[in-house]
């Protein structure tokens, strides 16, 4: 800060419009949701939490212990966790690998633009395209498996419980790699090229340079990619709604969609609030980490 500290009455004029919006339409409703979830019939109670966590119908279950272990539905919460377990490593490695390859690629900005399109389009369109690509009649994925003779995968993925969740996760890799690529490209740009050149003169191959030099140097970017992807995976909604509506039989359901089903279908606002609070509690650790880090940098 340069200059003398100035009074907060004057700063208030600047802050007031935004803070009013945020208080009325973000903070107050967030707190109200917590209260809604904890008051049942005018009394403080965690009954709604017990209810939503122990729900057994596949369309609304968060955790299904009785489900067959080899295929979904396992419950929306478990689906979100599986989503993260597959999506985060794939997106992180693909983004970094591609960012590294693009340092030596002609027309790399064109490649970057193509991969980034997934980040620009509405996620509703993304969900439709996922359904399209995995459709038996018009999609390319079943066509390829048909040619390979893998009958099990040569059908409309979104119609089968064993495949619908996987189709969505792979689709979200396609959509979200543009994010990690962009972050990593920026990070790689700030590594002095002398580092890599020196290693090359010493006879290091690409693979060695990639794992031993580049990967440790872009650690801060990796953490950002992992945390942001985690937040994105927890909040995932649009593509699931459009591609499968959580189905078939709840096999691709996720937390955000369960919340919507309680609110809009069952009109159970307390249960919807309880699911929303659970979802928010999961986003808080990565969110808080991000906030502390961004404040320090900003």
């Amino acid at each position, binding site marked *: 800060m340069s200059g003398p500290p100035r009074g907060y009455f004057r700063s208030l004029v*600047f*802050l007031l*419009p935004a803070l009013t919006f945020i208080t009325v339409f973000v903070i107050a409703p967030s707190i109200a949701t917590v209260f809604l979830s904890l008051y049942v019939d005018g009394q403080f109670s965690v009954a709604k939490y017990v209810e939503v966590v122990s729900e057994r119908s596949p369309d609304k279950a968060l955790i299904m212990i009785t489900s067959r272990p080899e295929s979904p539905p396992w419950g929306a919460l478990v689906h979100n966790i599986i989503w993260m377990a597959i999506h985060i490593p794939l997106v992180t490695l693909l983004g970094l690998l591609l960012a590294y390859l693009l340092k030596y690629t002609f027309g790399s900005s064109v490649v970057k633009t193509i991969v980034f399109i997934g980040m620009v389009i*509405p996620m509703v369109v993304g969900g439709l395209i996922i359904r*399209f690509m995995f459709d038996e009649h018009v999609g390319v994925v079943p066509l390829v498996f048909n040619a390979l003779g893998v009958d099990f995968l040569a059908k409309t993925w979104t119609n089968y419980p064993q495949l619908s969740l996987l189709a969505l996760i792979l689709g979200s890799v396609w959509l979200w790699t543009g994010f990690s690529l962009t972050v990593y490209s920026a990070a790689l740009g700030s590594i002095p090229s002398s580092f890599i050149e020196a290693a090359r003169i010493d006879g290091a191959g690409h693979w060695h340079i990639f794992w031993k030099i580049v990967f440790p140097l872009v650690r801060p970017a990796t953490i950002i990619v992992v945390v942001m992807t985690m937040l994105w995976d927890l909040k995932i909604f649009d593509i699931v709604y459009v591609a499968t509506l959580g189905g078939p039989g709840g096999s691709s359901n996720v937390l955000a969609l369960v919340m919507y089903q309680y609110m809009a279908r069952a009109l159970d606002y307390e249960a*919807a609030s309880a699911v929303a609070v659970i979802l928010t509690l999961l986003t808080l650790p990565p969110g808080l980490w991000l906030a502390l880090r961004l404040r320090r940098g900003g």
Partner: protein
Amino acid sequence: MRFRLQSRRLMRLLRVDIILINIIAWCFALVWLLPFIGVFMVSVRPYGEVIVKGWWNILDATFTMDNYIKAWSYDPYSVSGGYINSLIVALPATIVPVAAASLAAYGFSRFSFPLRSYLFLLIILLMALPQQIVVVPLFLLLKDLRLINTFPGIILVHSAWGMAWITFFMKNFFDILPREVEEAARVDGASDFKIFYNIVLPMSLPGILSASVLQFTWVWSSFFFELIFLIDPEKWVITQRIANMKGTYFVDWGLIAAGSVFAMAVPLAVYMLLQRYYIRGFVGWAVKG
């Protein structure tokens, strides 16, 4: 001599590497582009033909704009109506938060007041919230205010939701602006607001443009808030309309593909035309720090 030999061998090795790298990278790009090519091909051909031959089969293909014409006026979820509604929502829901959040960001950047850093931390934390946490009470509030199923209602919600990240983004921008001119103007007796309006804002146009471009495309692409707050199909924005664009008895991919092209055309055009600002804004809030 020895050195030259070594460097030549290195060059040859590098060249093989680089050819391989180029092939891999471009194959990757092609795979990533393939879904869009597919959607485009289905959108410009009669669906009956696509079903029989496959969209990847371009021998003796028939090209037609029928799908686009049908989607544009598809009853009752026409793209034309969706475009108008999306613009009615997205334009004010960009201008309002960018204006208010820029003011707040300047306050955070240039003034000191109690709890400033905690308040700012809270604002950054809000960026991580899922939209699900606010919609039930907001639904009840907007119903009381008779704003449910109205454009002003959804504009208010989007404006508030965009406020946090735009404040964060613009504060970062203001922090790196040089202060000399502001100090000089202050010595000359200019008021805080005059300094902000006449000096800071014009200098900040690139930042404001970045924030606006991102906010506009995000509101345009938004779906969940609309699903909750816009019930009447007449009011539906473009994303809601294409999500409901199915054929009567079967999934008409020709129609959906054309609708999808319409829906993504606007954010894609914004991105292509203002790519520098888009990426700067994008990287600015994701990577800063």
